[in-house]
């Protein structure tokens, strides 16, 4: 079985996986990083979004071996110690989460948007979130949170 090594939330992590092991399975089951969630099996819901080398990726649609050597950030690695990342803080401030299950994917997807566009319009946010499903919020407050978070990030993180 192949061995993979990647930087996860700033730490080098290795593991022996099956060739078919998904990145999300490696994160959740091998590394115990259960903040990344699985909400579907057709790459639709986006609950599993992480950053791979700075870009948002659905970790259910990426093999662990594909992330070999990559720099992976999960929701557990976003805050700076006890200080929430500005996007996390914006979700809290604007009530952009309810049950919390889609939240890790939403936040990491939003950070990727903000890295590209520091002042996204409501329309741009809604279009960007095409790959992230939420059943609780009706997206209203998520959109507000993403706009506020992007502004707070000042265009880069």
């Amino acid at each position, binding site marked *: 079985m192949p061995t993979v090594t990647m930087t996860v939330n700033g730490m080098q992590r290795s593991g022996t996986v099956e060739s078919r092991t998904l990145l999300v399975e490696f994160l959740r089951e091998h590394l115990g990083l259960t903040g990344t969630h699985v909400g579907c099996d057709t790459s639709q819901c986006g609950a599993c979004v992480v950053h791979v080398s700075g870009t948002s990726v659905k970790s259910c649609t990426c093999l662990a071996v594909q992330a070999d050597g990559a720099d992976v950030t999960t929701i557990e690695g976003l805050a700076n110690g006890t200080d929430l990342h500005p996007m996390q803080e914006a979700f809290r401030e604007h009530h952009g989460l*309810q049950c919390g299950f889609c939240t890790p994917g939403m936040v990491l997807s939003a950070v990727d948007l903000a890295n590209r566009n520091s002042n996204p319009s409501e329309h741009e946010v809604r279009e960007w979130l095409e790959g992230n499903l939420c059943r609780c919020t009706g997206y209203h407050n998520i959109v507000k949170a993403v706009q506020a978070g992007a502004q707070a990030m000042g265009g880069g993180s």
Partner: protein
Amino acid sequence: MSGNGTGIGASVKRKEDTRFLTGRGRYTDDINLPGQLYGYILRSGMAHAKIGTVHTDAAKAAPGVHAVFAGKDMEGVGGIPTGWLIHSKDGSPMVEPPHPALALGKVRYVGDCVAIVVAETADQARAAANLIDVEREELPAVASIKAAEADGAPQVFDEAPGNVCYDWEVGDKAATDAAFEAADHVVSIDVVNNRLIPNAIEPRAAIANYDPATGEYTLYTTSQNPHLTRLLLGAFVLGLPEHKLRIVAPDVGGGFGSKIPHYAEEAILTWTAGQLGRPVKWTCDRIDAFKSDTHGRDHISTARLALDADGKFLGLHVSTKCNLGAYLSTFATCVPTYLYGILFAGPYTTPAVYCEVKSFFTNTVPVDALRGAGRPEATYLLERLVDKAASELGMDRVEIRRQNFIREFPYQTPVALQYDQGDYDATLDLALEASDWDGFEARRAESAARGKLRGIGISTFIEACGIAPSAVVGSLGARAGLYESGSVRVHPTGSVSVFTGTHSHGQGHETTFAQIVSDMLGVDFDAVDVVHGDSAKIPFGMGTYGSRSLAVGGTAIYLAVEKVIEKGKKIAAHLLEASVEDIEFENGSFTVAGTDRSKSLGEVALTAYVPHNYPEGLEPGLEETAFYDPLNFTFPAGTHVAEVEVDPETGEVDLVAVTGSDDVGRIINPMIVAGQLHGGLAHGIGQALMEECVYQDDGQLETGSYMNYTMPRAADLPSFSINHNTTLCTHNPLGAKGVGEVGSIGVPPAVINAVIDALRPLGVHDMSMPATSQRVWQAIQQAQG
């Protein structure tokens, strides 16, 4: 109630959020127990078949497999029960066929549980399931109400002739018939309430464990009501006493009704863990969730409204057929009856109302509560019919509603409910103003100039929430009480733990309930924690559904706090050498009236736990529990307005504005309440414009994944306008009514009425949900010949 920065009425940021935002939530699938095995449920791929021997030898011999169990292995175990007995018009009880956890003799829907494979890994269990050989003889299936009621239709159960479970009625049929005879106008409508799939983003999961040292079973499960699951699983299925069965529902990723029922998988897992003496974990994948989570809605109805010459409603006759699916899920039978038929007065003074409901078994997933549960179906029918009446009588849509509004309270409806309070004019006026109803024609003209058809739609509605009281629901067939418990434990140094039998799966109870307790006791918000979701920690509970948590569960907590204060007064009186009657409690201090002599809650709490100087005969400790059984339903009400722009070339409906004007009773946390409204609106808009569960005639689920079941996405929805006019519930001390289901109840008819308003110039007068571009385009083509 002090109304301070974290008290009642403040938009306090949620306690829950830090853990959810940092990946430290603890959902069922995040939990792993030492020595755990993985279960995979083999499901039926046929909608209806006789099953013979289930050959499991090859699967048992597969790598990593510990056990395989099929129906025969669980034959001595009780079936999955249902929670509400409905009686038909003739007084006969509903047909209540057995529901074995693992199919026995027959499978009855695609998704029915056939066997469980338990292995070292989830992949091994899934792979081994492919080696199970089930002897099957496929039978013709009925996948819809129309198929189920057809002459000579295949029978889902031999004991249910015609596939009928019950034929129920409510209201005075003779009085309603008389109203129609006296009517100047009769307006009729046929509507379908489309079947929906709930789709909480967290799939169901469970881990069961059996500890031979204590004889105790523990089940971690994605439930909205762990105690209810314990009751059903323990007492009816496995025969386990409550003290040997612990149910934990940790963080749960949304429910919307689909995590109310006690599911077969919970019984299978728990029983299997007992057989093997090892923890067994099961996580549903989304594809299986589509065919095993209970579905919602699925009605076909015909209704008639009798009116006088002035448009006053005289009578309403509703005839509904509904689909219960293949087995009776926990609340399946009461949703289309006591949560549906009794809603048909709506906010109107209609003096005679009659509703009959015939419910059918079909070879489809069991149908149960889904956000709103019965009330969206009733509201959709009524508000479509009222709009049609306005159109046929040439009356204004707003005025026909206004002239029929109930204005005197309490109001006894002709269908069992007594509304305690409301102000329907106020929410209507607020909605008209907030939606700029009067300015609509200018917007319609502006759209027309761009070749678009603009429409505006309205619905005025009431809900019945916090289903109660226990004695009444018991007389109507409920097999459980519908009260709630709350416990308040003031610790020796003054911090507080609150225990509630409700369950939070997104609603923010840990925040809202802490606000109430912090406000009442005058303790810091951060010094109050709320505990829920564990039958070993909470005295008892009925869980969260029907928008009951604040009105029922919050009231139980309120009453427990009052008991704490009463006991605290006795301790303070002793310490202050005063009479109990002279002690006042405010802002966290017990004070002798008219003096500055006081003791803080912290001092009283410490005294209660270190009772060196203590009232004679009083028990030490400062912890109280209250059980609250409501006196009545609560009746949130409101007006929703939707505005759409339709592209006549493509049929695409662009939802450009949604206005909610709601009376949800006392608002504890406006931020959370707005969030609940947003979510409900999105769910209702999903039903109106996008979502539809489709079965093929042979019972195969056509919309079986996110690839072909349309979920509302961010770009499908506008931002919402949320407005409130509050009247307080008169029969609970918080004045709370409920908010979780408002949007999904109120908005679907407003959206469809808007679509019809847009299309009416083209000669389109009817539209079904979901109003997809295809359906709208076809309606336009047909109307234009």
